């Protein structure tokens, strides 16, 4: 199967004249593949051994004032919490953001690659790329690697000429336009809260609070989600970070501890 590595040509070498230095370091980067009989088995074992960092609850929805995008900030390597402070909302350009769910390295690498392609599009066409176009570029690249074990569940959100647009893109090659998505192991919990409280004509403050609450509930019940609940708003003027709250503090805010008066008090026994 011939892999489509056109996405990697943007950083190909530019030293055409230096023939004597041709070799591994000047050639455009490409993926090394293992030479073995059972590629799938090897990938399965390698991923199990290496346990790449995975990240887990993200959500986004479209409403009257634009798009709200929210995520938590924990990555886990197997059962070990690798980090509580990872950025899962990445900025592709000043008016488009994307979320990271699934393999952290996979998402960050391909989002950076997408950012480069979007910039090249802008330079070649003298106008910004649409969200539909950007998500299509990402999908086409990921489809070439379908079945090879990439784990990416991302949402691309932005405001372009068509208004606010939200696309879900995954490593199976799927691409869906929609108005409400949640991705990751904590997504069922986030969906429950999100679907319950969603109204198209919410003001921005209420929409942000709904997103924050949904992420908090996902971190409460899903062990692989936690850390800081981050909320962004994407409007016609671009994206803006609205809040970043530690979920421990959100818990105290939503469910403050109640002092229960003791039923019986222990009395100190006087020394004999």
């Amino acid at each position: 199967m011939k892999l489509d590595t056109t996405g990697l040509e943007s950083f190909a070498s530019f030293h055409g004249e230096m023939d004597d230095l041709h070799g591994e370091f000047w050639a455009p980067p490409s993926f090394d593949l293992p030479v073995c009989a059972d590629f799938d088995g090897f990938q399965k074992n390698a991923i199990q051994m290496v346990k790449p960092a995975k990240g887990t609850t993200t959500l986004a929805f479209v409403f009257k004032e634009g798009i709200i995008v929210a995520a938590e900030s924990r990555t886990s390597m197997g059962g070990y919490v690798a980090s509580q402070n990872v950025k899962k909302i990445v900025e592709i350009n000043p008016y488009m953001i994307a979320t990271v769910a699934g393999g952290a390295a996979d998402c960050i690498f391909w989002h950076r690659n997408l950012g480069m392609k979007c910039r090249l599009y802008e330079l070649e066409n003298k106008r910004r790329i649409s969200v539909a176009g950007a998500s299509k570029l990402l999908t086409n690249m990921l489809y070439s690697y379908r079945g090879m074990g990439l784990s990416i569940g991302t949402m691309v959100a932005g405001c372009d000429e068509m208004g606010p647009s939200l696309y879900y893109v995954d490593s199976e090659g799927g691409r869906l336009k929609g108005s409400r998505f949640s991705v990751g192991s904590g997504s069922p919990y986030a969906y429950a809260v999100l679907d319950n409280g969603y109204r198209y004509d919410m003001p921005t403050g209420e929409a942000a609070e709904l997103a924050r609450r949904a992420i908090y509930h996902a971190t409460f019940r899903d062990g692989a989600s936690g850390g800081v609940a981050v909320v962004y708003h994407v409007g016609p003027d671009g994206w803006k970070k609205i809040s970043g709250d530690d979920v421990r503090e959100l818990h105290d805010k939503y469910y403050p501890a109640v002092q229960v008066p003791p039923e019986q008090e222990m009395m100190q026994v006087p020394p004999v």
Partner: protein
Amino acid sequence: MALSRDWMYENNGGTCVAIAGADYCVVAADTRLSIGYSIYTRDYSKICNLAEKCVLASSGFQGDIKALQKNLAARHLIYQHQHNKQMSCPAMAQLLSNTLYFKRFFPYYAFNVLGGLDNEGKGCVFTYDAVGSYERVGYSAQGSGSTLVMPILDNQLKTPSPLLLPARDAVTPLSEADAVDMVKDVFASATERDIYTGDKLEIVILNASGVRREFIDLRKD
């Protein structure tokens, strides 16, 4: 899994730790190399000086690590020829991430910690997973003893998250001497409970005046 035509990885064990300070960076690793229950050598350095202000410590499969270090050193040499200066630590961090990701389907079995000074002279530590996901942090531990070491470092050095809004002040970091003492303590504890960590501890300290190396004995059992 045993070595065969289809499986060419081994785990040589070991622990690597790095702590970043206001104007220094401490990178440390033990020097034991093991395969299974055997110790092959007590004197193997897991630390590599990639650039003037940039040091890499890696644990995992030392064969892959040797290849990775050579790859990075060669790329750094080419960079120096092209740009007439040394690579900064954040630049090297991105290079390492991309180098690891380009072996996404045949990974380097290496758990890396990159430490050094950034362009402003502040300490920086970057921590990686095996396929290139990385993050700039104030401290990190990787390797077989990392799960023993990280909780202690979290307890002593944890600062409010950079993701919080409004931003919170980071706690004043340790002095260089305190950081070195903490690293020694932490390795002494890890050596007690991890069979792959021990023998000798190599500590590399980077600051404005240059690079310094110290060796401390650890338990050899």
